[in-house]
């Protein structure tokens, strides 16, 4: 019996705690007072979500920067959206595609090469 009463008291207290701010807010519409809702509202100031700017000031598109003075990263997150470790050939939104690699394609007919010949390249 004692146990049942304790349980009843606990659930009543819990319900009262949860419903009081709601009741307060609803009631405030008529009276203009916020006995509990005021506390909740005050808390909201501290919990405000601050949206980050779309501009992160990093030099994503200056990957191969010629001068550190001009293109230094302000952030220390070391991210570089164009620096692809995955080996794909994305071009970071530029419209220019990559050139065809040597081998399957013949060199351009620019008058420098003998017709039909292909360069042989070696890196050591």
């Amino acid at each position: 019996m004692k146990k049942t009463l304790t349980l009843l008291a606990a659930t009543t207290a819990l319900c009262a705690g949860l419903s009081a701010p709601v009741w307060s807010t609803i009631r405030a519409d008529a009276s203009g007072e916020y006995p509990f809702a005021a506390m909740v509202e005050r808390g909201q100031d501290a919990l405000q979500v601050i949206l980050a700017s779309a501009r992160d000031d990093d030099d994503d598109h200056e990957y191969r920067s010629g001068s550190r003075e001009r293109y230094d990263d302000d952030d220390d997150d070391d991210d570089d959206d164009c620096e692809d470790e995955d080996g794909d050939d994305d071009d970071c939104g530029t419209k220019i595609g990559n050139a065809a690699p040597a081998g399957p394609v013949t060199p351009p007919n620019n008058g420098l090469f003998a017709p039909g010949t292909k360069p042989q390249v070696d890196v050591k």
Partner: protein
Amino acid sequence: MKSLLASLALSTALTLPGLAMARPVTLTTTLTNYGGPGAYLALYVTDSTGAYAGSLWMAGGKSKYYKHLTDWHRATGGNTSEINGITGASVGAGRTLTINLDLADALFDAGYTLHIDGAVEDYRDSPNEIKLPLTTDGAGKPVTGRRYVASFQYDM
């Protein structure tokens, strides 16, 4: 049989002048140990007036970085059709890039100049790293670059 011989003679006649007007050339580029990642290199030629004549090789496959090969990019507008079929990987610090190709005879002793632009991630761009007149006398004589190229020479 007769037509086969005729076509053979014709193809030989057409091919020989082309071969006679070209010469095998080896371009050897050795980089310094600058300590960074692979270098992008653009090898190209200008004529006697300084106008861009064409590209010989592009070391580095991603077009988004070509703007850092500043002189080459200015001359070509970054047009990748200039380097289709003559593009390879970037060259690591301290390594040697050797290119064997058949170049037109008319390029030598006619006022043409070979240029190399270089660029390395997070390092300074180096336009005109090498600027070397193409002459028969200049063959086999190594020259030093400004920043990334330890030595360059062409042999015929």
